[in-house]
């Protein structure tokens, strides 16, 4: 392809990073829950979808994208808390496939509920007025909202990192992921820690749904492909590793974007090829086995 210039490559890279930002956010939530609770959350895509719907709903209600940005993760996180407390908790100690099947079923309940509440067609969305338009990056124009996505992801992941790494509660979470028995003996209510981690994980999924909503169609099925993609990212990064989730998320975004440029027909396939290669070379994933915070 003769028409490919250096500028186009850079622009393609930016596009990949913006895509990767959403992947990374999703995978962080998934990885957090797996790393702490060893629950493979098959409802993660559904929480993402619910986040998108609630985000649009709150946006309509309050008229402000920023309010919605606060309310949505709270609401989705609250749903997550209820799910953990009443559905997932009774299954602890029963083997990894129990919560897997439960969350798989839960995802269908959530999809049907959204169909009932908001209709089969989904809801229309648009980019918030203050983030509309394009910015000239010197290499070409790029949508403001996608730049915002990259920044927002960095802020959210940064905040999560500070919380886990620098706060007392974060210390308990980290300890709990290494050895829950010892933490319990030390007098910490580990069930509550798990509850909160599940809440945070689902809240982040809801938040990524809201952030993705303005860029795509919001409908009840939108979480299904997203679930597969976030599992790819989690596996590439290493199950349970947060830095792995971030690096792999961005990597998957860039690989997808670059393949789209050179061989668009294989774009969708490319991320699965990446996963296969990583699994062959490093079966535990890029950052696997190194503990929750690597």
């Amino acid at each position, binding site marked *: 392809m003769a028409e490919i210039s250096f500028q186009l490559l850079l622009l393609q890279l930016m596009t990949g990073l913006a895509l990767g930002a959403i992947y990374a956010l999703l995978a962080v939530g998934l990885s957090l829950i797996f790393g702490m609770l060893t629950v493979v959350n098959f409802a993660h895509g559904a929480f993402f979808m619910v986040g998108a719907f609630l985000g649009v709903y709150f946006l309509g209600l309050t008229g402000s994208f920023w309010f919605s940005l606060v309310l949505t993760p709270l609401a989705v996180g609250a749903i997550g808390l209820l799910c953990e407390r009443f559905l997932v908790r009774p299954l602890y100690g029963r083997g990894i496939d129990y919560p897997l099947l439960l969350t798989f079923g839960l995802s269908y309940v959530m999809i049907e509920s959204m169909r009932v509440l908001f209709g089969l067609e989904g809801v*229309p969305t648009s980019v918030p007025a203050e983030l509309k338009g394009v910015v000239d990056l010197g290499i070409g124009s790029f949508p403001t909202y996608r730049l915002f996505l990259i920044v927002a992801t960095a802020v959210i992941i940064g905040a999560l990192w500070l919380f886990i790494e620098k706060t007392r509660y974060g210390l308990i979470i980290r300890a709990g992921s290494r050895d829950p028995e010892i933490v319990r003996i030390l007098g910490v209510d580990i069930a509550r820690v798990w509850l909160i981690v599940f809440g945070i994980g689902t809240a982040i999924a809801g938040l990524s749904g809201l952030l993705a909503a303005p860029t795509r169609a919001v409908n009840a099925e939108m979480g299904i492909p997203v679930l597969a993609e976030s599992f790819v990212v989690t596996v590439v990064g290493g199950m349970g590793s947060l830095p792995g989730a971030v690096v792999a998320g961005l990597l998957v975004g860039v690989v997808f974007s670059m393949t789209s440029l050179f061989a668009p027909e294989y774009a969708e396939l490319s991320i699965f090829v990446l996963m296969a290669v990583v699994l062959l070379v490093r079966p535990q994933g890029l950052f696997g086995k190194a503990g929750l915070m690597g």
Partner: protein
Amino acid sequence: MSDSTTSPLRRRLLAGGAAGAAIAGAPFVSRLAYAQSLPIKIGFPTPLTGAFSAEAQDQVRAAELAVKEFNAAGGFNGRKVELLVRDDKLNPGEAATRTLELIEKDKVDLIVGSLSAATQLSINAICKSRKTLFNSISQSDAINEAKDWSFYTFHEALTPHATAGAVARYAFPKFGKKVVYLTADYAYGHEMVRGFQRAGQAFGMQTLADIRHPLGAADYSAFLPRIQALKPDILVLCNFGRDLLNSAKQITDFGLKKQMKVIAPVLLYTARQAGGAEAFDGILGGTGYYWGMEDTIPSAKKFNDKFRKAYGGAVPSDYGALGYAGIRSVLQAIQEARSTTATAVANVMRKMRYDFYKGTQFYRLCDHQSVQSIIIVESKSTGMKDKYDVFKILSIEAPSESNLRTCDELGHKVI
């Protein structure tokens, strides 16, 4: 049975019946009377659930309107029409099963319906094997091809080839010569590109790239920098449904609409309603019907008014209108044929000229494709009168057989 009809045929039948009764006794008369009071049954398989449910439900609403109208006018020989709606779940296997059931168990007289290229082919295959008349109201290129077609196959909807051609003939001379296609990587997408490229030859169009994206992709951003760098005059979106919505949305966000004209072969009313004004703003496309035609087409006005009255002021969508036309065509043919047998009805339909909602139409003899007008619309985002006012009609291409693929090309021996 009602005693008000006085058609000569019926009188003859009754006379025959009476004569028969004199010989064979009462049972014969009552059986004849029973047959005449039986409703005419029309099977209507359509995807009430699944991705096209909004369009399918509108098809049913409009079809019911046509049935009510016919029954209110006295039916055929006193026989009322009954519409048997079945959900084919957008699944070809399900569609085949439901159709078989309609024919074998419910004993329908004919089948109208479908909404998807794949389900209509499976419905058609069943109807073909049972020699049951089928009027398809979904867009497809394949159904007219000789290998699938039968004497009992009618196609009320447009073909993608004709729609793409009409859009190309309108847009290509106006907006420049350099074109990029963003195409969903499956048969429908490829058919569309073919339609555009063929029509484009006459205008010396130059294809810069045909970028194939996976069907059902949620994000198109990765394709857009390249399109931006190619600097085409026209970007053609050869995809459908949610793919069209998502790509249109992201093209808007990337500011591509400011640099090039964006066109789509098929721009549906329901898709525009679901997607919102902003994503579709300024996109030009083709459709089989838009309610706004009522300003110039009297039959459209009549149809819209009836629909508004029946459904609380709502206007019919493009696929809805096809539900209405599909039913009315077969009912008019039954009336004229004075019969419900498939061969008699088909023979009348082959000769019919009709205008139920969008101006004069007729079925081409070789493949029973309805030759009809194609409407070129542009999506509005400002100056809309109400929520139904979403398109501006740019042009209406008159019906012409020359815009269809030739009978020869489809494998038919010209009749």
